[in-house]
């Protein structure tokens, strides 16, 4: 099926503490082939790419390049062997020119040992023309370029390094439809030159337009490689999500009664490019999931509601009253809480104690004349450590020494102490082991049963399908669909999350 195998991936496995990121992944990439790698968030795509580009070494398994076994020591070694990676966040030096970036680390010199800009200009021009790019001058500064132009520069850079395999990680995530077409034209010309492309994307339409073969990963394992002419987007999506999941935990779907009043109502909320005209209602005691692909604007919706960022447009009605949501201080005072994505970066005070971390938001309530009532603080912290079964040697332990799941429970305890009316949970079980995960499900479930309105952001569809009463699927800053749990399954959600790409891109 493939004439010449450029890269053979054979039985690659990689584990991180607590997670098996890749489990015996094996497939082949042919010369001059566009090979798409697809999978849900957390399927192992990024880990695989990082192994191919020499960032990580695999635990087991081998890579064969040109039928010879090879072990990359570092990204530079991979580069020397013709493998270039173009990251989602481009890695160009903003204040240098296009040609300086392309020749970074190996600037051309003239006889005097000075940088030979003339020669570089010419060579750079050539590379760009080969890609069919004519709107970039070699002496333009990177910071003046658009994202798609930067991508072209990255590609030109890869070519000038004699790349034979270019890995592109979600290259179309932040460019327009028209720019995507230009990118595809460049990819086609690369193909003719015999360069192979490993194309990572969620977007079915694009994959079917550009890829020759499609490899599906799921939960770190290799599922299947299919020729794109022999398959359909539907089949691919079902391969991506066809995971079994544990239904041990069972929450009854909570139906909204007709006469109920929502605790939170959002009308036409917009913020920047990430939140576009979002409207929904949340009822007390309801778990509303906000799902979709990473980058669809889910976190931004919640952060805007919580006052971390200020809305550009729209109404937020909380408990029947319209609110401005200017700062978290304001929204917390009203009875909202947020368990943010990124425990360590946004949630925890790592060098402070478990006690401090639990009581921080509630402190104004346990103060007299600015002085913290210590016995009360200790009692509250101990109470919640016991209630949520946080495993720690004591409340005086620094929170950095707790496991991920227990750290997450510490943050949840912080909010429970404040008895919120609405709690936003952003990927609450991310990087948490299985045991702690089900405990966190229990906590979320019982909170909802006590009447707290919960907005759950999650990329894990089984989690959404276990906990949520209603499901909003976001795509490109908008709500693409609303489903009740009974009507939802992973395939439908993924279709909402991945389809309709064009609508958003055209503007």
């Amino acid at each position: 099926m493939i004439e010449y195998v450029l890269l053979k991936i054979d039985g690659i496995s990689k584990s991180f503490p607590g997670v098996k990121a890749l489990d015996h992944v094996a497939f082949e990439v042919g010369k001059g082939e566009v090979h798409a790698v697809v999978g849900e968030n957390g399927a192992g795509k990024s880990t695989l790419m990082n192994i191919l580009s020499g960032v990580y070494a695999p635990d087991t398994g081998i890579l064969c390049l040109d039928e010879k076994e090879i072990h990359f020591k570092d990204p530079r070694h991979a580069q020397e062997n013709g493998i270039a990676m173009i990251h989602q966040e481009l890695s160009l030096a903003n204040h240098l020119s296009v040609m300086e970036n392309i020749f970074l680390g190996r600037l051309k010199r003239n006889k005097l040992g000075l940088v030979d800009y003339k020669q570089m200009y010419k060579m750079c021009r050539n590379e760009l023309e080969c890609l069919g790019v004519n709107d970039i001058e070699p002496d333009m500064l990177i910071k003046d370029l658009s994202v798609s132009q930067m991508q072209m520069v990255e590609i030109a850079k890869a070519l000038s390094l004699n790349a034979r395999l270019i890995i592109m990680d979600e290259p179309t995530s932040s460019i327009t439809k028209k720019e995507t077409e230009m990118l595809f034209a460049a990819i086609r010309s690369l193909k003719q030159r015999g360069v192979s492309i490993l194309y990572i994307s969620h977007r079915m339409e694009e994959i079917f337009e550009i890829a020759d073969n499609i490899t599906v990963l799921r939960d770190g394992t290799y599922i299947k490689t299919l020729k794109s002419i022999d398959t359909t987007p539907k089949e691919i999506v079902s391969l991506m999500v066809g995971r079994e999941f544990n239904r041990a935990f069972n929450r009854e779907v909570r139906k909204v009664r007709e006469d109920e009043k929502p605790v939170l109502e959002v009308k036409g909320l917009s913020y920047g490019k990430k939140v576009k005209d979002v409207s929904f209602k949340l009822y007390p005691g309801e778990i509303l999931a906000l799902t979709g692909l990473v980058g669809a604007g889910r976190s931004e919706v919640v952060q805007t509601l919580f006052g971390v960022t200020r809305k550009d447009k729209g109404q937020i009605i909380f408990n029947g009253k319209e609110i401005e949501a200017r700062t978290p201080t304001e929204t917390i005072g009203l009875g909202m809480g947020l368990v943010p994505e990124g425990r360590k970066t946004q949630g925890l005070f790592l060098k402070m104690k478990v006690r401090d971390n639990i009581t921080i938001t509630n402190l104004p309530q346990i103060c007299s004349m600015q002085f913290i009532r210590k016995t009360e603080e200790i009692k509250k912290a101990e109470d919640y450590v016991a209630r949520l079964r946080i495993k720690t040697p004591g409340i005086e332990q620094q929170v950095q020494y707790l496991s991920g799941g227990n750290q997450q429970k510490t943050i949840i305890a912080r909010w429970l102490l404040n008895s919120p009316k609405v709690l936003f949970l952003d990927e609450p079980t991310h990087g948490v082991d299985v045991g702690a995960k089900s405990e966190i499900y229990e906590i979320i479930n019982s909170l909802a049963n006590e009447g707290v309105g919960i907005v759950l952001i999650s990329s894990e569809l089984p989690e959404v399908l276990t906990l949520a009463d209603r499901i909003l699927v976001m795509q490109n800053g908008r709500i693409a669909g609303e489903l009740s749990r009974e009507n939802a399954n992973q395939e439908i959600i993924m279709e909402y999350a991945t389809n309709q790409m064009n609508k958003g891109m055209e503007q």
Partner: protein
Amino acid sequence: MTSNGLPKPAKDAAAKDAGVRNALLKMVKQKEFSVFVALVLLCTVVSLLSPYFLGVQNIFNVLRQFSVIGILAVGQALIIITSGIDLSVGSVLGLMGVVAALLAGLGLPPAAVFVLTILLGAMVASINGLLVTKARINPFIVTLGMMSIARGASLLITGGMPISIENDITFLGSGYIGVVPVPVIIMFIVAIAGHVFSTKTLAGRNIYAVGNNERAAKLSGIRVDKVKVMVFMIMGALCALSGMIVSGTLKTAEPSAGAGYEMDVIAAVVIGGTSLAGGEGSIVGVILGAAIMGVLRNSFVLLGVSAYWQIVAIGVVTIGAVALDSLKNKRD
């Protein structure tokens, strides 16, 4: 992620590990304790070398010498814990000394001079805080600028000439209560107040939270900007207090008073175990840090070593203290 030494969860060894870890932790937590040990060692050595060191008179001398640095270091520590820094302390001290002299010259009673000077000090410093929080300028730059502005202002006001003070406000600098010099008493009051403030109050807890993780602090409902402005204002008030002490000692306000103090103050804070990265540190440690510097200075005088060596020694101790700390952290 390749080899950052994440501990692997080994269940049977975990309990034992936690025990060892706890013991280690306790030691690390007692940062002030190791500073205290260093101070005691230093005092022992110096007292063996010089019989005058432990004399009552000399001890009060030492205390008096580092009292102003100690007072300023309390404020600086609060700022550094929020992961800021204030380079303008010496200049603001000088300016406030001049301001106090002018107010005294108007014939105001000492109490009025005291209160007004403190308020003005806090006001001047609040400009630092507002520039850091609202204009989002790096505190290093803001206070570097303020350092120059405040110094220039005191020179402009005085025309470069010292102003003598005829007012009982000079009691703050030159007075005694019993045998104890007033600046020493003030330092202890400031230190105790600072300790209580930082460990027992809501605002104190918020200072640590902001320094630990500003983003998380904001998401926990803490008004981060308010906390930052507050610590700068406290610093300004303490600069004003110190300005009155320094000019009171000589009964003269020198426009150049306090020049170079910012470095001694930051050194005291750092020797006392406060991390410049923020989120950690204690007032007790900071006062001990100031004491180490004071004793060091005094010992050089007693031992008749060139004053220039003092300056070198303070530098060595500052770097040494931080080096020890980072070595200790690495092992942890």
